[in-house]
């Protein structure tokens, strides 16, 4: 691998905007998202429902086919612009170079074929191998993702697997062509905590084996803390904080991140009161011209009527007008008292 290839990030997203023209008006689902995913890197995208984290990933892979959608910006995969590529070219990237895992494994599998058939089809769509070779690979893959007795189970239908096992099948399918980039959309949200642990461990192991990069979409700060190298916190379609995992979790800078971190009830310590963010998420139909979080923010001031840009140092950026030293002060008070005010 040449030096030039190492230095270009695997995936670069620049100022991605996705909007839907609906009867009620223009819905700005993603509003200026820029991220880069390096090789072997795990990037976590965290946000609550409606923050645009899934739509962003779906649209950059050309999976949003709504007639009323408009997508702009740049998406470069290995330095090549892929946004707006024709369908057939996109299809050769999806599945082979970039694979996806969805929240509900049942929607990613067709119930009427055996899992083996589905994995074989996936392999043969991208590689010139015989059915027998592809079948042998399918068995091997199922074994690799920890499905016991893969030679027999390859002939079973999706409904004959438990939720955790089904998610393993989907992961096996996603890995069938050794993708360089895996996009996992809430891969463990539908699973129990012991199963979640198994799946996260599997992802970690596979990432190390194949040197793949992962974009992990989740609402769970705990999962982010265990998996991600870098974190993007999204609110109302905009990135509000970006940085290394440790920076974002230990020294978060955006008031929304403070609320998000403080609202999680912890296994480790009983707190008398959870930090809450007042109000509900802003409607994407009606984004304020300034900071999207301002209506719910306890620290807003005049500046917040204008939209803050992402700024910061050492790769730790946040979109907030508050003075950095003031933020450190407030943050300390929030941690001590558990109250955002």
């Amino acid at each position, binding site marked *: 691998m040449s030096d030039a290839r190492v230095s270009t990030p695997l995936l670069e997203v620049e100022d991605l905007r996705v909007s839907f023209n609906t009867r009620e008006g223009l819905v700005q689902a993603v509003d200026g998202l820029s991220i880069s995913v390096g090789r072997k890197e795990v990037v976590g995208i965290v946000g609550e*429902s409606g923050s645009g984290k899934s739509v962003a990933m779906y649209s950059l892979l050309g999976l949003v086919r709504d007639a009323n959608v408009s997508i702009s910006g740049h998406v470069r995969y290995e330095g090549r612009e892929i946004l707006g590529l024709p369908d057939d070219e996109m299809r050769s990237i999806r599945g082979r170079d970039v694979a996806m895992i969805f929240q509900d494994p049942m929607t990613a599998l067709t119930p009427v074929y055996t899992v083996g058939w589905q994995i074989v089809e996936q392999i043969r769509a991208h590689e010139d191998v015989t059915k027998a070779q592809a079948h042998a690979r399918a068995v091997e893959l199922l074994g690799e993702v920890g499905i016991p007795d893969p030679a027999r189970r390859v002939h079973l239908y999706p409904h004959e697997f438990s939720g955790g096992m089904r998610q393993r099948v989907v992961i096996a399918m996603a890995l069938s062509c050794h993708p360089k980039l895996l996009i996992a959309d809430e891969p463990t949200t539908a699973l129990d905590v012991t199963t979640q642990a198994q799946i996260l461990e599997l992802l970690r192991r596979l990432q190390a084996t194949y040197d793949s990069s992962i974009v992990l979409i989740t609402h769970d700060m705990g999962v982010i*803390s265990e998996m991600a190298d870098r974190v993007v916190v999204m609110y109302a379609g905009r990135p509000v904080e970006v940085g290394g995992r440790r920076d974002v979790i230990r020294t978060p800078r955006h008031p929304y991140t403070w609320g998000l971190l403080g609202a999680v009830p912890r296994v480790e*310590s009983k707190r008398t009161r959870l930090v809450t963010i007042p109000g509900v998420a802003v409607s994407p139909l009606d984004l304020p011209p300034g900071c999207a979080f301002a209506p719910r923010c306890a620290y807003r001031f005049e500046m917040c009527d204008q939209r803050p840009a992402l700024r910061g140092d050492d790769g730790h950026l946040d979109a907030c007008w508050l003075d950095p030293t003031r933020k450190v002060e407030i943050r300390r008070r929030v941690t001590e008292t558990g109250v955002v005010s």
Partner: protein
Amino acid sequence: MSETVLLRATDVVKNFTLRSKQSGSRIIVQAVAGVSLEVRRGETLGIVGESGCGKSTLARCLVQLMPVTSGHVEFNGVEITGLSRRQLRPHRRQMQLVFQDPYSSLNPRRRVGDIVAEPLRINKYGDDEVVQTRVDELLRIVGLDPASVNRYPHEFSGGQRQRIGIARALALNPSLVVADEPVSALDVSVQAQVLNLMADLQSELSLTYLFIAHDLGVVRHVSDRVGVMYLGEIVELGDAETLYERPLHPYTEALLSVVPELDDGTHPVRERIVLTGDVPNPSDKPSGCPFHPRCPVAQDRCTTEKPVLVELAPGRSVACHFPRNVA
């Protein structure tokens, strides 16, 4: 029964009968397999377990939403199993439910005011004006605008709908509120609002909560005491603080070790114990200890001899032959 115990369950069993797909023969699934517990006045008892462990079925059996197969439930010192619907009614008023899904537990064709007023009307709380005043008051205490009585559930967000569900549960001044996964459908910031609301209401109205959830963090946050369920049984029961600090059952220990935690430097990182395999099918339970096939410390005895729930230390019970973290 002592004054402090509001609800006592003794050896509650709930079986469901299914027909086998292959042979057509009847199979019995024991969803709740002999649970005994007490809920004390003013406390929150949390029941935690993975999907299919029988925690929701247990809750429904305790409030007689489902008849028990065997066992006894005493509420306020009165045996309530086997009572007719009419006989149950005065007790029902005292125990109310909050459900998981705020979308399907509210009738979409009825106005919020009617939804909250329904228990009042059924129980002949008073004339329309009295009911109206009470509805206004209820909406106010759960943090909703009383002016919204004429709106429909779809006009509210998930968190607001859960508040409507809570207002309805509180309408008749119950002493026990059974909440079955009340926050699991909500986003984390909204979840925090609802949990804080429930805590406020508990102290203002001296409520007793039976709180069912799969989220270990949430259960720790709300509970005074916690019961851990596995395959229809309570495998560990104790006060929340010590149960989370020093779990006795290997299942509790493993469960706690795999919760993804924020590494914010405030706590040492736990060693992960990742269990292998899936929870066995409840219609085909393992012999001996139900947890033994997945247990990292199982021994021969566990495969044959079933451990019973015994009190190991004051207020701490465990069903395990080889409990962990014992001094």
